[in-house]
């Protein structure tokens, strides 16, 4: 900017205490920084209802990622600890001191989002004026006035991005002068890069809640012209790779302190906090003078955990030059291995100027200087490390203006090409492999409400740049996007990439074979059958399907081609399939109509006549078999095929009770069951319809022995007449 013409303007801000790296919220009346007294476990609750723009509940995952971003640095003690208890998530009383709530205010219940306010989100912070201790803080999204998204919906604000910024306020941080910081004051729809913390955000948290001793650089900013101190100068340290490494505002004595540094060599420079961030973006009480030009200092070497005195950082007089406006969408994202044409607004951007990135590996070529803006191309080599790059403009007169952390180098966005399998049980436990590209260590995979963080227990494993594996956790049935979020904030998404569904399993198909003409009722036993499921035999959809329970399904078969075995498939809604075998027989199904007499002693030995249809020499008769599976039971002790509709059998010994009677073609598996076809009476009791015969000693009583040879002779005459009558009845029916 050019020299001040209004030097005598009234002071517009009050005096301030020391401001550390980054900018912290402070008590306006005494400049004491705000802080949590329990930074190790700051409780936070995500309100269950979330945003009505995101009905799938994915606000949870987005906000959990935002919470995780602030807890990733081991150099700070600050940890947001989510309380996931349903009772807390159901609360909406955000103003209560005992809960720190993230809430979407859909009806302006807070009163902070009246019509016309243009406020997208806000974080009220309660504090003690005497100590600066934070008493309560909550994050409120204006759900009434704005649209929010977790899936990149156009015209909507990214919940994770906005949430990350607001949580920084909740932790006690003010806005940052770094264009690439999460605490940069401006955000646009579609911006994702503020999801990830910049080093400036990290330093701010380290300064507020250090977990260990870090190196620091301390000095004083002075005007070269008269040695006077510069209040509120924005001082930045740049590392040896040319990346933005730390920032600080000088205090009202011109003293700056860059904290939270690792050992290394840093180039220090000062730049006025005038655009695109200014004192108006900070809480009241900061003195910010801007009547000087961006000025490079010298490099300093700092040792681990040690403080280094820089001395005086002399700054040059003001110039009519500045780079960056809040109308610019910052930071300027540039992809490693890619190129882009970008622009920035400013002033004094005239022909003959030069544009210089702080990272020498990054190439910047101006395309057009238009006084109030500049258009330029950027090329970033493949493999360039993620991070922030300053951009400096030098005008033809040697004037310098630096926009700290103007560009953010990001890796290529992950691409999720395949998710295999794409279906898993809601109970979890499915091992899933994601294949694609640009998968980097530290990635987080989001599937529905679950986050799988690289390397964490229950998380995912970034195997290499093209492979991520994970084992699913319990998740409600449904189809979800599979999102891979890089630690830089960029993401790749497989829309509807994975489905959680009940996966059926088939234990038995009974009978396992049916007539080719169709019409066979078969019973499928298994588990996790869901209403609405589909059954196919050899690919042919079965029209008559009855889901009796999660464990039992009945199907009346469609006609098929004799042969097999064919694949019988059960497909639940959602696509989960179980399969078994089924065959079509050229023979008609046996039909068991009646067993007479219908009861007899449990000791067995009763001659019974089975009448029906389509009996043949391969038929066998079982008593007490499971009518759904055909398993179990006891075979008749003797069996004679009298004709195609009559079987003469002798009952076996069986426990008392009414049991099924099964006729099965042993060759084809076709079967017919009378579910309550015969009753074995306990000893001493008479069988219905039969005469009572006293039991006799011996393994095989005389009556039984007698019947064993007499039956073929007598039954032939006695039963054929009865069978003839019964067949006539069936025909009429």
């Amino acid at each position, binding site marked *: 900017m050019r020299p001040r013409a209004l030097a005598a303007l009234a002071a517009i801000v009050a005096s301030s205490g020391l401001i550390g790296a980054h900018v912290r919220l402070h008590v306006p009346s005494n400049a004491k920084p705000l802080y949590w007294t329990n930074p190790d476990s700051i409780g936070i609750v995500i309100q269950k209802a979330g945003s009505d723009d995101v009905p799938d509940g994915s606000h949870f995952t987005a906000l959990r990622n935002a919470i995780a971003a602030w807890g990733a640095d081991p150099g700070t003690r600050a940890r947001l600890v989510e309380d996931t208890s349903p009772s807390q998530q159901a609360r909406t009383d955000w103003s209560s001191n005992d809960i720190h709530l993230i809430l979407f205010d859909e009806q302006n219940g807070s009163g902070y989002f009246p019509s016309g306010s243009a*406020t997208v989100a806000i974080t009220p912070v309660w504090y003690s004026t005497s100590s600066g201790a934070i008493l309560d803080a909550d994050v409120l999204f204006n759900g009434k006035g704005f649209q929010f998204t977790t899936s990149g919906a156009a015209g909507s604000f990214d919940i994770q991005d906005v949430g990350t910024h607001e949580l920084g306020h909740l932790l006690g941080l003010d806005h940052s002068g770094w264009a690439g910081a999460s605490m940069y004051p401006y955000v646009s729809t579609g911006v994702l890069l503020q999801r990830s913390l910049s080093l400036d955000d990290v330093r701010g948290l380290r300064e507020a809640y250090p977990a260990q001793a870090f190196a620091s650089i301390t000095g004083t900013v002075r005007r070269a012209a008269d040695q006077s101190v510069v209040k509120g100068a924005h001082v930045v340290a740049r590392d040896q790779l040319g990346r933005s490494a730390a920032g600080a505002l000088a205090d009202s004595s011109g003293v700056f302190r860059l904290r939270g540094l690792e050992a290394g060599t840093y180039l220090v420079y000062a730049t006025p906090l005038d655009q695109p961030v200014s*004192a*108006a973006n900070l809480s009241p009480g900061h003195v*910010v003078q801007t009547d000087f030009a961006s000025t490079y200092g010298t490099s300093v070497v700092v040792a681990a955990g040690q403080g280094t005195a820089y001395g005086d950082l002399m700054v040059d007089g003001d110039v009519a030059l500045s780079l960056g406006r809040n109308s610019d969408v910052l930071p300027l994202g540039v992809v490693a291995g890619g190129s882009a044409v970008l622009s920035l607004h400013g002033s004094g951007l005239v022909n003959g100027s030069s544009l210089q990135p702080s990272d020498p590996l990054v190439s910047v070529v101006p395309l057009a200087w238009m006084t109030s803006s500049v258009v330029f191309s950027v090329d970033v080599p493949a493999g360039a490390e993620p991070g922030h790059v300053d951009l400096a403009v030098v005008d033809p007169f040697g004037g310098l203006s630096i926009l700290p952390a103007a560009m953010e180098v990001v890796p290529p966005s992950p691409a999720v090409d395949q998710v295999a399998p794409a279906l898993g049980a809601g109970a979890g436990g499915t091992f899933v492999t994601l294949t694609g590209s640009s998968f980097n260590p530290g990635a987080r995979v989001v599937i529905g409400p679950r986050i799988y963080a690289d390397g964490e227990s229950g998380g995912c494993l970034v195997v290499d740049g093209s492979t991520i594996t994970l084992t699913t956790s319990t998740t409600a049935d449904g189809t979800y996007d599979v999102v891979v979020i890089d630690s830089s904030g960029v993401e790749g998404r497989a829309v509807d990439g994975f489905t959680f569904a009940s996966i059926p399993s088939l234990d038995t198909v009974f009978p396992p074979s049916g007539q080719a003409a169709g019409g066979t009722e078969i019973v499928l036993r298994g588990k996790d059958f869901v209403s609405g499921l589909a059954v196919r035999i050899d690919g042919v959809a079965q029209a008559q399907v009855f889901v009796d329970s999660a464990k039992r399904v009945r199907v009346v078969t469609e006609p098929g081609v004799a042969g097999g075995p064919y694949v019988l498939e059960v497909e639940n809604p959602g696509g989960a399939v179980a399969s078994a075998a089924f065959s079509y027989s050229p023979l008609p199904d046996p039909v068991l109509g009646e067993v007479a007499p219908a009861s007899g002693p449990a000791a067995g030995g009763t001659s019974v006549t089975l009448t029906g249809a389509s009996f043949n020499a391969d038929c066998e008769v079982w008593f007490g078999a499971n009518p759904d599976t055909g398993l179990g039971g006891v075979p008749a002790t003797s069996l004679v095929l009298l004709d195609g509709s009559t079987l003469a059998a002798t009952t076996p010994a069986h426990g008392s009770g009414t049991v099924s009677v099964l006729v099965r073609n042993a060759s084809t598996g076709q079967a017919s069951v009378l579910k309550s076809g015969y009753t074995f009476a306990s000893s001493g009791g008479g069988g219905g319809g039969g005469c009572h015969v006293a039991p006799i000693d011996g393994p095989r009583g005389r009556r039984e022995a007698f019947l064993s040879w007499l039956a073929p002779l007598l039954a032939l005459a006695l039963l054929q007449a009865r069978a003839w009558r019964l067949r006539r009845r069936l025909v009429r029916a």
Partner: protein
Amino acid sequence: MRIAFSAALSAALAIVSAQAPPPVEAGTALRLEVEGLVDRADLAIEARVLSARARLDARGRIETEYELAVARVFWGNPGARIVFSLPGGELPDGRGLWLPGMPSLTPGEDVVLFLTGEDSFGSRMPVGLSQGKLRVVRDRRGARSLASELNGAELVAPGGAVPAADGIRLLDYAATLARIEAAAAGRRIREGR
């Protein structure tokens, strides 16, 4: 070659100009020009802050009640004096409430304010948080400017930046008030008032 370059540059400019949705201030609030502030305001005034008093409102929240002497009305129908409250402030009992992005008013300062309607508790919100306040500042000769966070090409005087004071970019007082007046007139026409 020059033609080709120009075509490419034009395309690049078109891309650049089309890619940027307006950023919002966090806060977080929409970034608004003067016209946008007027369009959203229930009350747009130039006034002097007479007093400020923090208190607990009926909801148990800290708010600061301001009394202002109204010097000019751009939109709305306030009297010569207006009393309203904004969220935040510090109580004598040692509790404070701060909402990042919220502007504060200091007794004695002259301001141009863009405020939302008053709720049932007598509270208003500044339109666009800190953007809803422009401070009137005077140089040693008494010439007035407006200090604000608003910027961009429309705020840059021909030949370079408007002078700034302590980090606040200054707007030409008369020109900005003219824009406000024009915006208010346009709104009256649109709304049939």
